[in-house]
């Protein structure tokens, strides 16, 4: 345990808003939740907002002339405005999807749909000879959809490598980004390494060649202030459930002129202009991309999550996690036989720590941690190619959020030591402490 300066956030106080954080697991161990990279917990305020919608205003949005339908529509569109302004965007630039995965698939499918969607949508066409550029550190959600786009269209997939330190290898960027490049899809922050990527550098080069830039912001929007007007990206995708919001809602932000020039993905009700039995025309964005009765209660919940985060202050969230990250790097770095994937210093990295412990399988590490009440993730974290690059099958990952404390980091370090003791892997001591 270490005595520390009080940070910008009083996490202990804030934890009162999260009912689940006071529960115990495994024979009355207090829960230490270090798996926010997978999904975050939700404060009472978010759950209340969603429930209030159901109990007072529930109706099908954009589809009725009665008072409930008006109220539901109003709540849904206000939620859109709140979420848009949370990332520095405008309402008409925000499309609701079910998660980040759907948001990315939306763009990938729109690009193959452009082949048959007529001249209006020719901006998005792609085919043999064209290139799609990703990185070796992508989450499967920002990799497999592009593999599939290439298979559907005959385009070629290329990728940035990752350095031993867990940074994007930009040394061959001039070759990788060229006049054949149609879209560059990359993570803002890696869900395994914590690395924050130099988005503006890559975007600037991509835009020289008229390529589109899609940012997988699933691990950045929840943790740092994000302003779409500053990033240089054309599209931004993220999920509600990783940022205190409900499951079942995600966001695709896009430049309005691009959204307007993009053919639809999922088709059905509410996204149409006119429909004849054999053909249809499309509504303007964002409706064009929101077929079916939308997840209005979830949108309202996500807006409440944005309000919660804004009240805490995203700069404070960032600073709090930075301080914890420095501390975690120090504590983990002091452990013998523990190898961290990703940057060892706090510069341009978030609070995500994936590691291997010598001679102990990550799943066994996770099991010992679980036994002590620590919730971490084990496996390839949906980034199998990245694990291959580091020649490991799996890692154990701890990921932090605004409700985590120094004590949580202490518990992690002690938990790893306990795993080593349990499996007799290394002498029970921390180096240099």
């Amino acid at each position: 345990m270490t005595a520390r300066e009080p940070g910008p956030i009083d996490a202990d106080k804030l934890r009162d808003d999260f009912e689940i954080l006071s529960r115990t697991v495994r024979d009355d161990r207090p829960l230490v939740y270090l798996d926010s990279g997978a999904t975050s917990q939700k404060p009472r305020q978010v759950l209340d907002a969603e429930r209030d919608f159901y109990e007072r205003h529930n109706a099908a949005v954009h589809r009725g002339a009665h008072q409930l339908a008006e109220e539901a529509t109003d709540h849904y569109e206000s939620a859109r405005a709140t979420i848009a302004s949370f990332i520095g965007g405008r309402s008409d630039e925000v499309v609701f999807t079910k998660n980040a995965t759907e948001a990315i698939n939306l763009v990938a499918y729109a690009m193959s749909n452009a082949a048959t969607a007529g001249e209006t949508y020719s901006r998005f066409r792609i085919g043999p000879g064209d290139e799609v550029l990703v990185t070796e550190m992508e989450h499967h959600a920002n990799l497999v959809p592009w593999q599939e786009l290439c298979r559907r269209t005959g385009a070629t997939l290329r990728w940035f490598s990752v350095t031993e330190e867990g940074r994007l290898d930009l040394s061959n960027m001039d070759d990788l980004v060229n006049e054949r490049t149609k879209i560059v899809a990359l993570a803002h922050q890696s869900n395994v390494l914590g690395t924050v990527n130099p988005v503006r550098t890559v975007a600037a080069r991509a835009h020289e060649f008229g390529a589109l830039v899609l940012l997988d912001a699933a691990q950045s929007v929840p943790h740092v202030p994000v302003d779409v007007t500053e990033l240089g990206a054309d599209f931004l995708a993220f999920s509600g459930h990783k940022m205190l919001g409900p499951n079942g809602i995600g966001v695709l932000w896009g430049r309005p002129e691009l959204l307007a020039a993009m053919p639809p993905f999922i088709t059905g009700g509410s996204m149409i202009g006119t429909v004849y039995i054999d053909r249809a025309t499309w509504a303007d964005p964002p409706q064009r991309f929101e077929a079916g009765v939308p997840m209005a209660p979830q949108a309202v919940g996500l807006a409440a999550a944005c309000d919660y985060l804004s009240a805490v202050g995203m700069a404070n969230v960032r600073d709090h996690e930075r301080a914890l990250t420095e501390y975690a790097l120090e504590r983990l770095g002091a452990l013998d036989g523990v190898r961290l994937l990703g940057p060892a210093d706090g510069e341009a990295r978030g609070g995500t720590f994936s590691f291997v412990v010598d001679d102990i399988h990550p799943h066994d590490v996770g099991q010992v941690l679980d036994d002590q009440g620590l919730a971490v993730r084990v496996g390839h974290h949906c980034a199998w190619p990245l694990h291959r690059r580091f020649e490991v099958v799996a890692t154990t990952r701890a990921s932090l959020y605004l409700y985590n404390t120094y004590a949580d980091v202490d518990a992690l370090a002690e938990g790893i030591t306990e795993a080593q003791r349990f499996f007799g892997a290394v002498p029970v001591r921390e180096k240099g402490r």
Partner: protein
Amino acid sequence: MRLDAMYQEIILDHYRNPHNKGLREPHDGEAHHVNPTCGDEVTLRVSLTPSGGDVIDGSATVRDVSYDSMGCSISQASASVLTDLLIGRSVDEGMRMLDAFTEMMHSKGEAEPDEDVLEDAVAFVGVSKYPARIKCALLAWMAWKDATVQSMQSVSNDSREGGDVPESAS
């Protein structure tokens, strides 16, 4: 501490000092299984001896089991315990053990496994409380089943054809 109930001493012993690890010849069947949730794998070989004459059936004896594998403590220990238990038994006995083991693993820690049937494998009962780890314990057993089915076919064919044990099955 629940951890001790899961990682019983027997399991940790086999994990630290696995028995019969390393692929051996001769073998009649071989199976390679991957645990899709973690990417871990096992390659397992079986060699059988007919109980009498040419007929190969459930009464055949498991002459040898060897394996190579990569994975967590549970999967390693399970493979090791399996070889100890099955080498020298009849195929029928082995299959009964497999059934009993599978049943125990799906019991969510509620089973009171029969030590007379499962012998050292009863040590894995604690693992069955952890859904994410059940596949770890079953991995080698599933591979043994496949390799044995294969072995029986290959030995029958050999018997019918009067040929030699093939260098590599599967």
